[in-house]
């Protein structure tokens, strides 16, 4: 008899009142650790894998160069190109001008500037050797090959 009664009684629904709190917590977490993606990347980006990764210390001193096959093949062709800021460079010579600009904006800390090369793994070394030569010429010698952590 008592069994019957139990079955008839409705089980109370799980309270979802705390769900918004949890989600808001997650939201704030992501808002704090993430920073807005301010630059659209116009070239292919599949970073190579490596094991010996080290963190770059002061992000404010890092400037990026993206290297890879352009996503817009019709406009920029199939050859690997270099992107800095929001534009694809027309020639390697522009690197000199850009580095001088970056250095000017950093002022006294220009010597600590690091150039982070975010190159697609399919890029040939010729492109990178050319960039490195230009960076040497512009005296931006601290460089960093941006890589992702290898699972091995």
């Amino acid at each position: 008899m008592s069994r019957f009664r139990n079955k008839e009684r409705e089980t109370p629904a799980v309270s979802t009142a705390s769900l918004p709190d949890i989600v808001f917590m997650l939201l704030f977490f992501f808002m704090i650790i993430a920073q807005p993606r301010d630059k659209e990347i116009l070239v292919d980006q599949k970073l190579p894998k490596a094991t010996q990764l080290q963190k770059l210390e002061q992000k404010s001193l890092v400037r990026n160069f993206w290297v890879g096959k352009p996503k817009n093949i019709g406009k920029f062709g199939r050859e690997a190109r270099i992107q800095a800021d929001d534009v694809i460079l027309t020639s390697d010579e522009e690197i000199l001008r850009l580095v001088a600009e970056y250095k000017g904006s950093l002022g006294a800390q220009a010597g600590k500037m690091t150039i982070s090369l975010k190159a697609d793994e399919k890029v040939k070394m010729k492109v990178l050797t050319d960039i490195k030569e230009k960076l040497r010429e512009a005296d931006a010698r601290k460089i960093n090959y941006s890589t992702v952590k290898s699972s091995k």
Partner: protein
Amino acid sequence: MFKKRKKKGLEEVNASSMADIAFLLLVFFLVATQVASEKGLAILLPPKREDDDDTEIEIKERNLYVVIINSRNQLLVENKQMKIHQLKRGVLEFITNNGRNPDLSDSPGKAIVSLKTDMGTDYKTYIIVLDQIKAAYHELRAKHMGITLKEYLDYNASEEVQNACLKKKVQRFREIQGKTDDGESEDDWIRNYLKYDLEKKDRDPKRRDAYIEARELCGLTLAEKYHDAKHVYPLQISEAEPSQTQ
């Protein structure tokens, strides 16, 4: 009428849509942001070559470990073909030879790894090879510091300068030299202190004494060990310049 309502109690605002709103915001931020992950393999390029500079530095053949990658991503190490996964061991043997094998290096400080790539070499292969060479050096440095490889890779210099012991040492270093208010920032002084090289002939004996005394003040800090390890095992990778300038 009014009384009747009050008795019922205030009706609760339906908050079930709150979760939906929050989820929507969450998804927006997930899509619109990227996690700040600035990690990679750092290297220092050699200084610019002056046109009139034709000084040649002589390096003994034994102190040079020549790694060549061809356009088909094959490896030639010291004139022998090698698989990439064997490279780390090869480099380790080369650095820690200490003059035993006449074909390998005299000492870790003199050892130089020469890395030559072809125009057509894949960047991916280059990174794997560079990674292997770095792995060898990092392993030795971590061992020298008495920490694990992971701890070495995670070592954060800017955190370490907060170390109380290190601060005390730098303070002492400045006091002995009588340079407590010379306008240089504390960070600069920490760098000065850490960079000090005892083996170099220093013109200022006061500075030398100051360094020796400060170093013995309290136990060796991780920052000092890190610099020592880098000094003992300097990562010297020489990359060939493009052929037209040779």
